[in-house]
């Protein structure tokens, strides 16, 4: 193009242009890249595999003191060969980031695998449905189980949800719907409350209701402690969900002459229904495995208890607590079994929140 005349699009070339293949040249690996990165990964790996079998060095030392530095060195070398010295830092970050990811996955897999494999040994109908009456830690597997603990967990969690979910949702309604002057303070206190250690929640209920003789150690006392832990989770999640309800819905309903209360109860909350259910489930998931508060407020009981106000009661976490660190192998297997049952409950709650939030608004 000379700068003095114009050029217009040449329509006759359209067919030729249509033949062009879309490419991503930035993804192309040069031979230098391959020559640097492949050995950069394979050489440290080969050395470590060799040392793994033919050296007396302890395995953790091998991984931390030999493989990690070796892999870092190789990555830095490869990076310098391909992109120059400026990319050395990137190579280190990438290796460390992948390392941190693998570390976390190993921990998670170790956790899940041990729960599943060890817990599976305990599984039987007796284990799932019987209670712990007449069972001692040395009783062989096949008798006794977590039936009473499952009932206890369900009872305690249900009562705490009955208390904490309405209060949590109302707190959220205050923040997003009533919008009173105290909103920043309310949010601040809810956040502060979410940091209350579970053992302190237990101590609080113990002091106020049990020491004073108002209540005995029971499912209801445990549920009160649980609801302290559950409320902030419900309130914060519900707040986020209510915020997603479009402002138009509110103004629209108000314009039709609806009262503020009706707008909230008939329009806003139904619109955020799935989200509020999610909030409730998240709250339940937050507390279902809590042990410390129950050790103070509901103790343990080998029998199945249905009256939430009267007797001490065992829940899954306290059942695990009692059976860990027993000198009897079968008791330990029972602890793992109960852990598996508890983990399955947690997993179901987890999947529920995921599917619900994928479907509903958020």
């Amino acid at each position, binding site marked *: 193009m000379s700068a003095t005349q114009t050029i217009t699009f040449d329509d006759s070339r359209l067919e030729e242009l249509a033949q062009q293949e879309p490419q991503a040249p930035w993804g192309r690996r040069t031979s230098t890249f391959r020559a640097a990165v492949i050995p950069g990964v394979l050489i440290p790996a080969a050395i470590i595999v060799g040392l793994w079998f033919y050296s007396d060095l*302890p395995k953790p030392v091998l991984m931390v*003191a030999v493989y990690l530095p070796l892999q870092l060195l190789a990555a830095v070398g490869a990076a310098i060969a391909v992109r120059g010295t400026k990319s050395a*830092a*990137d190579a*280190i*970050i990438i290796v460390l*980031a992948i390392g*941190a*990811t693998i570390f*976390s996955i190993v*921990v998670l897999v170790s956790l899940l695998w041990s729960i599943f494999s060890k817990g599976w040994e305990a599984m039987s109908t007796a284990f799932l449905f019987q209670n712990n009456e007449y069972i001692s830690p040395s009783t062989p597997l096949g008798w006794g189980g977590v039936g009473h603990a499952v009932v206890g967990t369900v009872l305690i969690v249900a009562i705490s949800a009955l208390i904490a979910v*309405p209060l949590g949702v*109302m*707190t959220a*309604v*205050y923040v997003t*719907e009533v*919008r*009173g002057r*105290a909103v920043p*303070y*309310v*949010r601040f*206190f809810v*956040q*502060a409350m979410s*940091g*209350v*250690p*579970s*053992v*302190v929640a237990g*101590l*609080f209920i113990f*002091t*106020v209701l049990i*020491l004073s003789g108002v209540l005995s150690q029971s499912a209801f006392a445990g549920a009160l402690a649980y609801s*302290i832990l559950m409320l902030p989770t419900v309130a914060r999640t519900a707040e986020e969900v209510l915020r997603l309800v479009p402002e138009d819905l*509110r*103004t629209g309903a*108000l314009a039709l002459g609806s*009262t*503020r*209360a009706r707008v*909230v109860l008939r329009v806003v909350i139904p619109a955020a229904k799935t989200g509020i259910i999610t909030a409730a489930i998240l709250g339940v998931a937050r507390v*279902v*495995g*809590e*042990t*410390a508060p129950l*050790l103070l407020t509901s103790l343990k009981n080998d029998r199945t208890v249905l009256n939430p106000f009267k007797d001490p009661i065992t829940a899954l*976490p306290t059942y*695990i*607590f009692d059976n*860990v660190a027993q000198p009897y192998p079968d008791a330990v297997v029972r*602890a793992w079994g109960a852990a598996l049952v508890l*983990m399955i409950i*947690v*997993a179901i709650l*987890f999947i529920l929140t995921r599917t619900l939030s994928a479907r509903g608004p958020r």
Partner: protein
Amino acid sequence: MSSTDTESFRDLQSAATSHRGDRIFNRTITLAAFTALIVLAGITVFLGLQTIPVLQTQGLSFLTTSIWVAPDYGIWGMLYGSVLLAVIALVIAVPVSLLLSVFMVFLAPKGVSKVLTNLVDLMAAIPSVIIGLWAFYILDPVSQEWQQLLNQYLGWIPIFKNTSGNFSGTPFTAGFVLAVMMIPIVTSVTREVLGRTPPELINAAEALGCSLWTMLRYVALPYGRGGLVGGVMLGLGRALGETIAVFFVLKIVFEPVNYYDIIESGGGSIATLIVSKFGEAAGPYEVKLLLAAGFFLFMMTLLVNVIANLIVNRTGRLQK
């Protein structure tokens, strides 16, 4: 809140107060909204009331000495131990969480990152009693081996000294367990903070020829600093208050206070102290002592948590 929000909010307010049913509704909701305040105040008052007689009989030595033999009681070793465990947990969990979130936000393909997000959330959902069970039977034996090696190769560093030859029930193992619990909590915050680095800043950095490292160092980390610090402190609050997971892997020792021999058996944790002594508490006075210990634990975690939330909120990134 934008200005239009405030305006519509005023309209709604005037509409709201004009109706009697609404006034009742508003009052009920407002009352419920103060539950959090009531509970916090209740904990302070009721545990505080139990603390006064303890301080009267034990004096300040309740906080400054480390002993649990009638008639002398002091929780200094436990308070210190809680902090020590939290520091060990931070040293392990913070780098891992940051690197993990860098991987999820900046390195991994979208699909992988989504799977990792779910895995991290799942990890956060595992109850602490199960983590304690795992720590006691799976981690502790492995950890003993690691600590033996640390002592063997790095024993000349003061913190890796071990003279007893007993590597179980150490602050190291307990701190590691806390780290396992902190990693998902801290990661979920740091991932979100890093993910909210404005794309236009990343674009600007890319246009100036940044590398991953320089982009993190000069753009993403400074931009998200408040949120990152807040996230770490939220994790710290959780670590200070964690009870059961530590209970199984830490041997509670009052005397001598284990200040820095992190791979030596025995240490302290105030939350764990409460649970371990509660069942066998000999009489109402010892219960009061534990309630007082709980009061100081509450104050400590409340302080950390409030600071964390102030930092997070001031940067306004996690709250909409």
